[in-house]
């Protein structure tokens, strides 16, 4: 599913609108623990997290994750958006809980990493 469609489905705000929104997402991984995120292998994977800080973006960068959605309506800093943009990471923000985001995407065919 294209990340732009995912944003629509989740009524999410696109914080990096200048990046290419037709990018495909096949998988998603939900975690607030960055150490857990850092143990995985990802391909076309969206990170769903409620951890809204620079390290969530850094973790995506190191893990070759190119799409991140911050759930639970957490505030996203300007520095996070800049870091995401610098690394070609599409950053979304949603008011939905992580459970709701995960459920909607799973139902729509986005697969679990494991």
């Amino acid at each position, binding site marked *: 599913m294209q990340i732009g469609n995912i944003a629509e489905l989740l009524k999410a705000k696109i914080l990096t609108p200048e990046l290419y929104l037709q990018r495909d997402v096949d998988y998603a991984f939900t975690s*607030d*623990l*960055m*150490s*857990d995120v*850092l*143990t995985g292998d990802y391909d076309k994977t969206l990170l769903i997290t409620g*951890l809204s*800080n*620079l*390290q*969530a973006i*850094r*973790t995506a*960068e*190191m*893990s*070759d994750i190119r799409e991140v959605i911050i759930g639970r309506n957490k505030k996203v800093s300007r*520095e996070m958006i800049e870091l995401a943009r610098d*690394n070609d990471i599409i950053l979304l923000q949603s008011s939905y809980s992580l459970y709701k985001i995960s459920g909607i995407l799973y139902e729509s065919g986005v697969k679990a990493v494991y």
Partner: protein
Amino acid sequence: MVLEYHIDGGDFVNAGKASSAVKRVLKQLDVPAKRIKRVVIALYETEVNVVAHASNGEIEAVIEPERITLTVKDSGPGIPDIERAMLEGFTTASKEVREMGFGAGMGLANIKRNSDDLHIESIPGKGTIVRFTNDLRD
């Protein structure tokens, strides 16, 4: 090629900057993406450990055509029992570190998993040296 970076303890805003810089250099050198990922995951976990536990640290990255050697020295509390610290789940991290998304006792095990050859030396009360080497070519 030798690259050097400084790490300030407690500075979570800049944690990961060195790993990011190394990633950019390895990309420019056309290192395969999977090899880059192993290097930067191990280095990032090490950086986070220094930020989480030490007052400061230094990173030296020696890049040769076929391999990279990373040496990270810190002025921290040291690790009294390295074997125990390597066990997944063992942690001495503060609440603040946990709030940053780390501190679950997975870092050292993940550094080991993502490095080809890992050596850790530590003197309690003085600091720790983490050194690892990774192949850069398939």
